[in-house]
């Protein structure tokens, strides 16, 4: 009798505890496929890691274009799947789509990757997060600068928006910090995912003597594969593409979204919210905060390059590294950061970048 009573009380306690920690449904929206070896895969890996946490249910939709279609997807997730937190991950979802739907559903939290929240102008239930992946690009640039024989580096980029320009500039600054003869030729393809154009751009860069290729597109697969087939080195982006370039992959700049998503889930489960202000609207972090990481070094990386890269990484980790330290000129000769001025990573000026640094061959206004 006593035993069964004890059992009854224990069961009730467990059931009540579970009921109190009700499942929070989180929606993830990707602009491309989840297995693209790139941007979307990095987010999907992060989503998969929070799906394992107790009390969390995720719903995902992939290949949602940056049009009104994403508004419908967000509404469907809220109404049909009872999602209370949404992570629409593509840059172009922010304005006007998230801003519009967020106004219609003020109780739901919208966390966007890459947007820039303006308090007072944007709704209170919207937040943005991003990683300073350009820190990892800087280190990637150091390795590229010390490995190149032709001193010509190539960069296949999607669109000339500030985040992309910042990556190009950090990569170039890193390369030129160890090799002042290095130049970076940049080609803009025009959109996040254009495999044919990416292949053409890669081949044309290689034909012009580039021997280290990197990129900022949604799926670096095409660029890295082209580099490997043509026998040159490559630096990766978003996730590690070492598996598809076993000989030429030097290193790369990767996201660590599981860390970021885990942090948000914990805050939501503790009852914090954007609306109440207990979750900050603008969240950024770099190597030091675990938002981004540098890929493992490939077989072609020399000991000297590794040493330089590790030394730089150590400076990032202890917070003493400043990439954007004046005087910096852009590639038309104009001074964009005057001497003596230091722009730390969180500086909002850097989020509006519209220039290419000296040493980059190409134009930001294509």
């Amino acid at each position: 009798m006593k035993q069964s009573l004890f059992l009854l009380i224990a069961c009730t306690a467990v059931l009540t505890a579970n009921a109190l920690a009700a499942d929070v449904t989180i929606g993830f929206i990707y602009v491309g496929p989840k297995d693209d070896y790139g941007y979307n895969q990095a987010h999907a890996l992060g989503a998969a890691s929070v799906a394992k946490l107790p009390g969390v249910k995720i719903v995902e939709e992939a290949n949602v274009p940056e049009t009104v279609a994403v508004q419908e997807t967000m509404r469907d997730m809220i109404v049909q799947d009872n999602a209370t937190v949404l992570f629409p991950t593509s840059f172009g979802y922010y304005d006007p789509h998230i801003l519009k739907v967020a106004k219609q559903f003020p109780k739901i939290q919208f966390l966007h990757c890459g947007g820039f929240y303006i308090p007072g102008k944007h709704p209170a239930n919207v937040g943005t997060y991003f990683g300073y992946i350009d820190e990892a690009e800087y280190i990637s640039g150091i390795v590229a600068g010390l490995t190149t024989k032709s001193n010509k580096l190539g960069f296949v980029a999607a669109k000339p928006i500030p985040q992309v320009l910042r990556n190009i500039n950090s990569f170039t600054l890193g390369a030129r910090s160890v090799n002042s003869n290095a130049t970076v030729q940049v080609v803009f393809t025009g959109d996040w995912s254009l495999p044919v154009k990416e292949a053409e751009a890669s081949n044309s860069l290689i034909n012009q003597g580039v021997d280290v290729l990197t990129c900022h597109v949604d799926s670096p697969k095409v660029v890295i594969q082209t580099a490997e087939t043509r026998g040159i080195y490559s630096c990766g982006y978003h996730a590690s593409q070492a598996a598809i370039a076993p000989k030429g992959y030097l290193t790369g700049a990767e996201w660590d979204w599981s860390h970021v998503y885990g942090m948000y889930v914990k805050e939501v489960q503790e009852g914090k919210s954007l609306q109440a202000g207990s979750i900050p609207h603008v969240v950024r972090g770099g190597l030091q905060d675990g938002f981004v990481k540098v890929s493992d070094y490939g077989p072609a990386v020399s000991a000297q390059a590794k040493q330089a890269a590790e030394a730089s990484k150590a400076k990032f980790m202890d917070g003493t590294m400043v990439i954007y330290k004046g005087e910096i000129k852009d590639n038309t000769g104009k001074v964009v950061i005057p001497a003596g001025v230091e722009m730390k990573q969180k500086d909002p000026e850097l989020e509006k970048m519209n220039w290419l640094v000296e040493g980059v061959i190409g134009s930001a206004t294509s």
Partner: protein
Amino acid sequence: MMENAQVKKVGSLLEPVTSRSLSGTKRHFRWRSRVESVVIPTGAILVSLAAFGVFCALAGADPFAVYASIYKAAFGSWYSFQNTLVRAAPLMLCSLGTAIPYQLGLVMIGNEGALVIGGLCATVVGLQMPTASPVMVQIAMAVVGMIAGGLWLASSGALKHYRGVNETISSLMMNYIAIAILNQAINTWIRDPSSLNKPASYPIPDEQMLQPIGDTTIHWGLVFGLTACLVAWVLLSQTTLGFQIRAIGGNVRAAQIAGIPVGRITLITCFLAGAFPGLAGMVEVAAIHGRANESLNAWYGYSGILVAFLARHNPLGCILISTLLGGLLASGGILQRDQHLPDAAIMVFQGLVFLVILFSESLYGKWRIFRERDA
């Protein structure tokens, strides 16, 4: 005007092809062929559902859970039904671009091109009237959209009548020309410089856009679609022009002998066929996007072809099938989220439906139970 004797002569030539009784005397009610025209498409849909179920099972999802999800996202709640209706509206309009010329005996698949051209011209006109009242702007955009789309497909019809160019191919090719014109326009001629990442035209002001009906998410485009299908049905089955169209469709030589002006009617019909998708283009701009951009090229035209064939080119059937297909399209997302199927799953279903329908075309008249008994 045709005389009675001529009507009877042409009518008798049409007997084996159309199942509508024309002169109305001493005809028993032809129910078997009507039943057939409902049973076979329904059977085709059921067969495609079964085939899709097999696909889902192979992809690792429970077919019945998939059907339940599709129902939930298409018709299961008022929210879902609104999504369905919003998607059905352009389908109703676009399907007429194939259904109407089919009565003439022409297989035209130029709905996509007419939609794009209609939407583009409607945008250009709408942008010229920033201070006019919303109703005036919308009427102007609708009229221009219809004329632009109508002229687009009428040229395909003209190529057929005056030069013998196969209308299926010419209308298909004109789709690509229309899309190229759209891309050129939004990238250069009418480009809004502030639309950095996604080239688009200048936007139509919010107040001048087509508003939702009441507090639903359904816009007035649905009313246009329903009206258009009804008008098309009345035109084809109740008017002289419609009769002449069907006469030409039945037997061109007989129609010419009977004095029907085939060339003029071909042009008028193709114009109508293009006007409705053109209106759909205007609705896409004025109700959904607010500007002309590459999203105008959203494959509603091609889905319209599927709807027309499924509805056996009957405008009233187009209403029903558009709603069904709209429901299918609206459930694409839920198949990913709840059933973990790939995002192309709903396209697989659409493809299966199309294939089965095309195959089922060969079954008409094959089964004795559906053959009309002689009186």
